[in-house]
């Protein structure tokens, strides 16, 4: 055989030899996880918040039979919308997209949803005056070798005196907690895997609209509202759920997405009872009181962000990122401050307390130009009971234990069950929604 002939043949055989197997190998490698898994059983999802809705959305895409049981009269969980208060729509619950690098960032691009970076400027209420800078650095809660003590204690250790109390309260409030309860070490440790980015975005419409139109719209017909699940019996092969009016629902698998206070307070009775390890883990995950008060004024006398109030540590101009510009100021009240306001007689008393504080900051202009208010108290909502989960002192691996499934039947999702740094966020809740469907289907395969 001539050398040239041999070379040509060898080349052709080699190309064929590699391309055919590579095409075959590529086709063997599935593009989608659990692509071939078929499941004929029924899945019940408890809670129609972001996690529950997304779990349902995934189940629907897999052709799996499911139903969502929602305790309240609306779906959305800690997402809500107020249309009539101002000339722009207002988010009653989650309103900032914390970082664009997330599954919701992709959904926003795909759906052409308009968002803008919140670049509002902050002023601090410090020593009874509004200032643009603070004498001492307050960026002390990130780094290595942080102690498992509260934000307030750590701030004192670092020389931030009592005059910084409500500045620190605002930093902890961002995490949904009181500064005296949030762990410096725990929070830093849990956010190690944070991967969605640091920019905060606001929606031209609302966060609620995104979830409603792009996710809930796909599964609305499977939501049963006003169904308060009070018992879950998973002792037999078939799981039986009982609601507050003694209606029964049967399922093969259950995904629980209720907020952590509902699990902690025993509002749902489990048969057999949940393992001690699990209930202990629930108790280590914090969730403090939280409320949003929207204050409408005739003039814009206030700054874009006001941090450090003694009644409310964080005020924000609600019109930022919106097309219309009614003068609406948001009082974002968390932790002990929310507990204090919740204890007042009624919404008028809450509004009055906030106006008094703003009057002090802006020489009485708040009361002069006040038009109306809307109080959204998530703490008094019996199906929510707070703002969002945070890292209590001593939290350790509580979230990892809390989210483990039981007997391959009962699964746990929701922002508090997010173990990859995205707890407290809507995209974090969404991630747990699809994660638990993956776990459920993996269990079926076993």
């Amino acid at each position, binding site marked *: 055989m001539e050398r040239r002939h041999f070379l040509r043949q060898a080349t052709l055989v080699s190309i064929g030899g590699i391309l055919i197997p590579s095409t075959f190998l590529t086709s063997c490698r599935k593009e989608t996880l659990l692509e071939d898994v078929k499941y004929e059983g029924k899945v019940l999802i408890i809670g129609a918040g972001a996690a529950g809705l997304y779990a349902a959305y995934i189940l629907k895409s897999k052709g799996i039979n499911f139903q969502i049981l929602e305790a309240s009269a609306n779906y959305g969980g800690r997402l809500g919308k107020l249309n009539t208060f101002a000339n722009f729509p207002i988010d009653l619950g989650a309103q900032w997209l914390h970082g664009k690098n997330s599954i919701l960032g*992709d959904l926003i691009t795909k759906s052409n949803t308009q968002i803008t970076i919140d670049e509002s400027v902050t002023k601090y209420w410090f020593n009874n005056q509004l200032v643009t800078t603070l004498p001492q650095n307050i960026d002390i809660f990130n780094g290595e070798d942080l102690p498992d003590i509260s934000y307030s204690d750590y701030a004192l250790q670092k020389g931030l005196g009592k005059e910084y109390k409500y500045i620190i309260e605002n930093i902890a409030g961002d995490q949904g907690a009181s500064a005296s309860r949030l762990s410096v070490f725990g929070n830093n440790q849990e956010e190690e895997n944070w991967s969605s980015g640091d920019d905060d975005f606001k929606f031209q419409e609302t966060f609620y609209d995104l979830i409603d139109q792009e996710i809930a719209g796909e599964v609305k017909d499977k939501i049963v509202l006003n169904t308060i699940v009070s018992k879950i019996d998973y002792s037999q092969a078939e799981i039986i759920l009982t609601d507050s009016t003694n209606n029964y629902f049967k399922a093969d698998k259950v995904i629980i997405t209720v907020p952590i206070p509902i699990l902690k307070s025993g509002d749902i009775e489990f048969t057999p009872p949940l393992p001690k390890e699990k209930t202990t883990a629930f108790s280590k995950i914090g969730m403090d009181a939280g409320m949003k008060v929207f204050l409408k004024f005739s003039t814009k006398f206030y700054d874009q962000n006001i941090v450090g109030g003694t009644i409310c540590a964080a005020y924000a101009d609600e019109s930022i990122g919106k097309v219309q510009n009614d003068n609406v100021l948001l009082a974002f009240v968390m932790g002990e401050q929310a507990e204090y306001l919740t204890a007042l007689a009624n919404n008028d008393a809450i509004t009055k307390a906030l106006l008094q504080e703003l009057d002090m900051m802006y020489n009485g202009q708040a009361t002069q130009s006040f038009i109306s208010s809307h109080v959204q108290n998530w703490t008094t909502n019996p199906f929510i009971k707070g703002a969002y989960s945070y890292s209590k002192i001593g939290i350790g691996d509580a979230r990892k234990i809390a989210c483990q499934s039981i007997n391959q039947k009962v699964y746990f999702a929701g922002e508090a069950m997010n173990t990859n740094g995205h707890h407290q966020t809507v995209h974090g809740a969404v991630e747990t929604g699809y994660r638990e469907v993956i776990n459920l289907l993996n269990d079926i395969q076993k």
Partner: protein
Amino acid sequence: MKRILILKIFIISCISASSQGLKIDASYEYLYAYQLDKVIQTYNFSRPFEKEKQPLLSNGINTSISYIFKNEKQIKHGLNFAYSFFQSAAENENFNNNLNLHFINLGYFIHYENTEKWKGFYSDLIFSGTSSIMLRNVNGEPYVYDNINAKAFGIGGTVRLKLGYSSAWKNNRCFSPFIAFAYTPYLYAPNNERIINQTKGLTSNNWTAIGMVQIGLTFHIRKQEQ
């Protein structure tokens, strides 16, 4: 023209230095990385709103240049520089998502050729340091968040076995087809998941092992024998 001139000067100076010759490869490369597959599979699973699924990173191209040190023995050795590129592209309405994975290998190789027994056949065993970068493009633009381009770096080591057959030398040049098998036992790339699935620690480890098969053509340039 300038680039070609620089390349020519480089090649000539390499050959006229202490080298025996140069080898320039171009090849098709097939990649398999379990952890990367898992992240892309999770991405596809979790996004029913994307009708066209993101293909797995598997088909790519490779090019390399090897510098052979002067040596009269059957076993020669030298330095090797290689570049590989893999792409996964999915087009959806308002959302065209591209994942681009680049590898650069820099290593040492041992070349074995038994001219008496296996005339024309040779083998190269290459040990190289590997670095990778994963980039994402959305709708034709580099994906940016927090004002920086999203990227994930990786670092590891690769061993590659290359088997080839050289055709007849003409004017100290020849072509040879080859097949190669590469294995990267450990590529530390903690942020690949962050780029692909926008999560970290949810679906995969922060490292992956990679297997590759290559088929291609080598162009040999040998220094003029005295």
